[in-house]
């Protein structure tokens, strides 16, 4: 492993080493084992425990959240040491070394660390290769994932429009009456021709307040009988009106 967390200081009257934060207790143990040039399969537990505890006592950089994990390892080390010291009635058999559990863990962890260093190199190489990032496909019009607007959204947009129209202060005198039925037919015809209507834009095209109001009611009626669908692509965006697909199929 070439990422030993170790940095030598320049002025070395006495040999000084500064340790950086370790990822975990196994990291620290492996480091100590390497520092002491210990055979991982034959660890002198007394030596390593002393080193480990010394390090814990000295080191203030250990992440507090992880402290427990380091202390747990210390306890394990002491436990192993005590097992080695206690006299036994029967000598230990082959492979019954109390250190076995720890050694297995260390060996496995060492392998993982080695794999990590290979993967790290690969990561380095891959990060300078760029592929085209695919954008998610745009939603099809009238697809179900659009937000279907509520009556209140429609009404709110409508009142904004009415305010605008009022401000325009039309003085059109016309003796024409607008019927709902005619307006509905007109909207359907427009939808069939254009496919989609912009709600705000459509009402802006209406000449008088009365006509606009009638168109609004017609639209509500059309929505109610499920001939058209009003959707909003995103919140606060303009409301669009589509013919319902099933109604198109019916005609």
């Amino acid at each position, binding site marked *: *492993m070439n*990422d030993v967390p170790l940095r030598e200081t320049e002025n070395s009257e006495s040999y000084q080493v500064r340790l950086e934060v370790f*990822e*975990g*207790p*196994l990291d620290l143990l492996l480091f100590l084992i*390497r520092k002491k*040039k210990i055979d991982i399969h034959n660890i002198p537990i007394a030596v390593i425990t002393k080193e480990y505890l010394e390090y814990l006592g000295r080191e203030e950089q250990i992440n507090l959240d*992880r402290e427990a*994990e380091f202390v*747990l*390892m210390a306890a394990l080390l002491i436990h192993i040491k005590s097992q080695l010291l206690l006299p036994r009635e029967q000598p230990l058999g082959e492979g019954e070394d109390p250190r076995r559990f720890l050694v297995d*863990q260390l060996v*496995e*962890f*060492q*392998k*993982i*660390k*080695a*794999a*990590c*260093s*290979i*993967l*790290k190199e*690969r*990561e*380095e*190489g*891959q*990060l*300078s*290769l*760029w*592929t*085209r990032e*695919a954008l998610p496909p745009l939603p099809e019009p009238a697809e179900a994932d659009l937000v279907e607007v509520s009556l209140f959204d429609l009404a709110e947009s409508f009142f904004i429009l009415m305010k605008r129209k009022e401000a325009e202060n039309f003085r059109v005198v016309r003796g024409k009456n607008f019927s709902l039925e005619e307006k509905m037919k007109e909207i359907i015809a427009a939808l069939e021709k254009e496919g989609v209507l912009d709600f705000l834009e459509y009402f802006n095209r209406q000449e008088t307040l009365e006509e606009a109001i009638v168109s609004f009611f017609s639209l509500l009626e059309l929505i109610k009988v499920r001939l058209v669908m009003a959707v909003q692509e995103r919140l606060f965006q303009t409301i669009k009106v589509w013919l319902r697909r099933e109604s198109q199929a019916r005609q």
Partner: protein
Amino acid sequence: MAPGLKEIVEALIFVSLEPLPLEKITETLNDFPAAEVEQAVRDLVESTASAERGISLIQSGGGYVFTTRPEFDPWVRRFLKIDRKSKLSSASLETLSIVAYHQPVTLSEISALRNVDSSYTIKTLLEKKLVKITGRKKSPGNPLIYRTTERFLAYFGLNSLDELPTEEEIAKILGEDKTVEQAPKP
């Protein structure tokens, strides 16, 4: 080989949104003999490798994909306004390689191998879509089971889990370590 076959393959890989597996190419071009299509793919890889171009065709994440050449990385990043790509932390890398080698694996198994609580790390890996949850283990507590994703393979330029560093490669690294340690200190 049928004329234009190489170019057809190139077009397919170009429009594909993700690494395009060879099977998918042969399946699409089923009006040509599979062997010819495979040859066309090989030729294409070869010709993009030799040509003086900004992109090359590589096999990664289980399929063929066009990537920029590494030497043009600085300009691509300037264009995309990315100072540098963020790398995985060593905790993430550790956890990820445990998942890769020990999958299917549970969180407590990962934590036991590392001797470190890994719940936060696994969460970040899930967010990065480098690992995924594939079910629950039938053991006490029914813990979640984790596996690596296709994206994991692509991230490291691997085509399958078989391409992970092998025991020999790992042993070699550990061996090299020893020789370094045994060298006398200056």
